[in-house]
């Protein structure tokens, strides 16, 4: 029997500690032995806008946000107004008791738990922001959870400020006790601690990318901040001394990629990260890396475009951009990830690919992957091995940089070894000197492009098929759509899902084989032009006619995908 997925939503004004409360609820659930998925929505304001964080949790795996809400913590009136229609019948609501929040609209459908949040927060010696922990304490009581997990988390959060920790713990305790005393019937035992559960990490794609880069031996990164990738640099900046790499904030994305290329040329394992707008500025440096054959990893975290677009919302609109950006032709490797765990492994792979093929490697992720936490078993990368590719580390009088080879890869060397080394953005001969002869041009273009053929043979991964080998309906998608698709599929044993995470080179044969044996194909993407379906058609000749698209910045919800599957079944 499968276990139900529950959801709790915490809403309030930006600045009310919604994000930290949501994360701590999720970690309490994870420590109690549950799987979680954390979904955050926030406008591009620091303070004042409406913030919500949803934790879905279950004893089974959970892969995404869901539309329905079983329990609501309302720190402001807007939370009730905006989310009351999402509440299931019998849902619980915790809200401020002092008449400031009116929940009467929900009183017939829901169970109301009015708690004097602000009063208890103040009595605990805290500011109003501490209300979030009062509410968490009360929720844990109502759901039969163990408050100790929350105390531990507060201690860890404020390990450098024990007096603040005490205030927050006191606030949580008073919320817990208030609920124990006033609501003896409780809500539902949703958080009963599980004995002997395997504890999992609560991780988002930002952690995945940053920790993966550090694990893969990152040595140099220059980054210019841009949502939704800025938190990557926050982690990288904070850990550089400990792990011995360099992070430097560049003056713009053009500098960020050129600085990283300079460091890479000098021999450092290098990367940069950005979002679509920043990638536009990096476009020229992207091709420079291809032409000079300088390794570089570029993380592109997609948000809604074009222009400034939807800075704090997600989209899968940049697939075609990273595939085609820059004039002329050069080998670019593009991989994608569908969740935090994949992002961790893909970035580690990206470093090896960049150095082996001496060319730019893009890791495409999106805002949902970067921001949303999910439980996973602790990442295991014991099988990972660093591959720096062909490298000449001794003085070699015969050395020339762009020597023509069968696999397209010419040995690198680094400045300081003593070899004369020219990296040239102008077309060049095998020594690196500028040359416009027909033979040099043809040799060098073909040598560079051969690297992609080698990569397709030696390193290209296969797409991942979830569900049965043969299915009545095959869903095709990529990126963060993976989560809601897997969540929806729990109810449909005759549906499978083809998850694409290699984009260039493209595993066309493997994809074609899988798509050819399905009777119905459904493409799902968070963009309005079905960019992946177009790529599949270009590479395999298969035209996926049914395209379920969404481009409002919000992720797909499993409920929407289930409705779509139901409507396909009905009409067939």
């Amino acid at each position, binding site marked *: 029997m499968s276990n139900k997925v529950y959801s709790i939503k915490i809403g309030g004004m930006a600045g009310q500690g919604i994000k930290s409360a949501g994360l701590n609820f999720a970690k309490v659930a*994870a*420590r109690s032995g549950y799987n979680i998925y954390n979904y955050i929505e926030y406008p591009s304001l620091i303070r004042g806008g409406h913030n919500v964080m949803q934790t879905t949790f279950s004893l089974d795996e959970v892969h995404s946000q869901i539309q329905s809400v079983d329990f609501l913590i309302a720190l402001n009136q807007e939370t009730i107004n905006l989310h009351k229609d999402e509440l299931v019948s019998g849902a619980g609501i915790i809200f401020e008791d002092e008449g400031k929040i009116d929940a009467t609209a929900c009183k017939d459908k829901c169970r109301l738990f009015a708690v004097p949040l602000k009063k208890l927060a103040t009595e605990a010696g805290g500011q109003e922001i501490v209300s979030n922990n009062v509410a968490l304490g009360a929720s844990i009581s109502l759901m039969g959870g163990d408050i100790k997990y929350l105390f531990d988390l507060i201690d860890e959060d404020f390990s450098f400020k024990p007096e603040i920790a005490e205030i927050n713990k006191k606030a949580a305790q008073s919320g817990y006790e208030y609920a124990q005393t006033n609501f003896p019937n409780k809500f539902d035992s949703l958080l009963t601690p599980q004995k002997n559960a395997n504890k*999992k*990490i*609560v*991780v988002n794609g930002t952690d995945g990318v940053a*920790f993966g880069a*550090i*694990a*893969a*031996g990152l*040595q*140099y990164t*220059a980054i210019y901040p841009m949502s939704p990738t800025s938190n990557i640099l926050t982690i990288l900046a904070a850990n*550089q*001394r400990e*792990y*011995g*790499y*360099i992070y*430097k904030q*560049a*003056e*713009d994305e*053009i*500098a960020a990629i*050129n*600085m990283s*290329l*300079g*460091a*890479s*040329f*000098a*021999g*450092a*394992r290098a990367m940069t990260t950005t979002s679509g707008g920043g990638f536009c500025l990096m476009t*020229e440096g992207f091709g*420079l890396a291809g032409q*000079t054959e300088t390794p570089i990893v570029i993380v592109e975290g997609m948000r809604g475009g074009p222009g400034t677009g939807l800075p704090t919302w997600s989209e899968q609109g940049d697939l075609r951009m990273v595939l085609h950006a820059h004039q002329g032709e050069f080998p670019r490797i593009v991989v994608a990830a569908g969740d935090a765990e994949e992002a961790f492994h893909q970035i580690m792979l990206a470093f090896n690919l960049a150095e082996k093929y001496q060319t730019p490697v893009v890791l495409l992720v999106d805002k949902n992957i970067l921001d949303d936490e999910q439980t996973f078993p*602790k*990442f295991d*990368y014991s099988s990972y*091995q*660093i591959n*720096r590719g062909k490298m000449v580390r001794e003085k070699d009088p015969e050395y020339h940089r762009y020597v023509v080879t069968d696999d397209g890869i010419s040995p690198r060397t*680094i*400045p*300081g070894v*003593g*070899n*004369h*080394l*020219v*990296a*040239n*953005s102008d077309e060049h001969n095998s020594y*690196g*000197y*500028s040359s416009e002869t027909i033979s040099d041009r043809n040799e060098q273009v073909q040598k560079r492009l051969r690297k992609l053929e080698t990569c397709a043979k030696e390193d290209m991964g296969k797409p991942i098929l979830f569900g049965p080998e043969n299915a009545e309906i095959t869903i095709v998608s990529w990126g963060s759509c993976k989560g809601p698709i897997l969540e929806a599929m729990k109810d449909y044993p005759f549906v499978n899902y083809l998850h694409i995470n290699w984009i260039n080179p493209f595993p066309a044969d493997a994809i074609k084989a899988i798509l050819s044996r399905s009777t119905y194909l459904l493409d799902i993407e968070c963009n309005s032009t079905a960019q992946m379906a177009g790529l599949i058609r270009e590479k395999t000749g298969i035209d996926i006619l049914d395209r379920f698209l969404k481009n409002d910045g919000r992720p797909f919800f499993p409920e929407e995908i289930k409705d779509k599957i139901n409507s396909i079944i009905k009409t067939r």
Partner: protein
Amino acid sequence: MITAAELATPNFPNWCPGCGNFGIWAAFKNAAVTSDWDNTNTAFVAGIGCHGHMVNFVKLTSFEGLHGRPIPVATGIKMANHRLNVFVFTGDGDCLGEGGNHFINAARRNHNITVLLHNNNIYGLTTGQTSPTTRKDFPTKSTPDGNPDEPFKVLNLAIAAGATFAARVYANDIAGLSAMIIKANEHQGFSVVEMLQPCITFNKECSPTFFTDNTYKLPDSYDPTNIAAALEKTLEFGEKQIPVGLFYKVDKPTAESEFPQIDAKPLVDNQVEKRDVSELLQTLY
């Protein structure tokens, strides 16, 4: 010891006969021979313009990048391996037009590199359009009725932005330029050497005689440590009124010295190794 012969490449410069780049080329090679700059200790980055072709004519480790972007590449090289002498060859258009943001920000951060700015007051490679240092009213291909804009005062901009070494030399003063390049490299910090470069094809006004007639050496009594006086001196420009020499020099911590992780040895001297991130992962429970 490196010799002039060892710095030679199979390529002969494709600059116009009489171009100031020949003087710069000779001065840099002299400086390299004098200071023993070779492929074990030196790298240079070139922009795009006539100056950028330098990579083909000096047999030292080099990177010819994009128009306007040599400075970020050079700072990346320096942060990754601060043992290297790192030079940038850049043009007035490359450095101050396309790449102006990099110039001022790298100066502000005081990266320990030497920027050799080929100032011919024109876009040479693209055959004669106005540049950020072209004088007002000068007619060019892109300003046939005379340049409507005021030029940058290069060293004023450099010092204001934070450069810790600012000098000007006439490109055909090979001995003087050679000595100044050595001095600029010895300086620990962001060094700018503005090289007054005749472009005999596209800027007939800034000819060799114009520079020899109108430049004068800063006197021995001039104090290059006084920033206010230096900024004022950089404003001086006119008939017989173009000062050359070291305008400003101050010692300040370099960008590279701000990273304790490379105190002991350059970044690239560390092996790239798989790191254990259990401690980081532990924070996620």
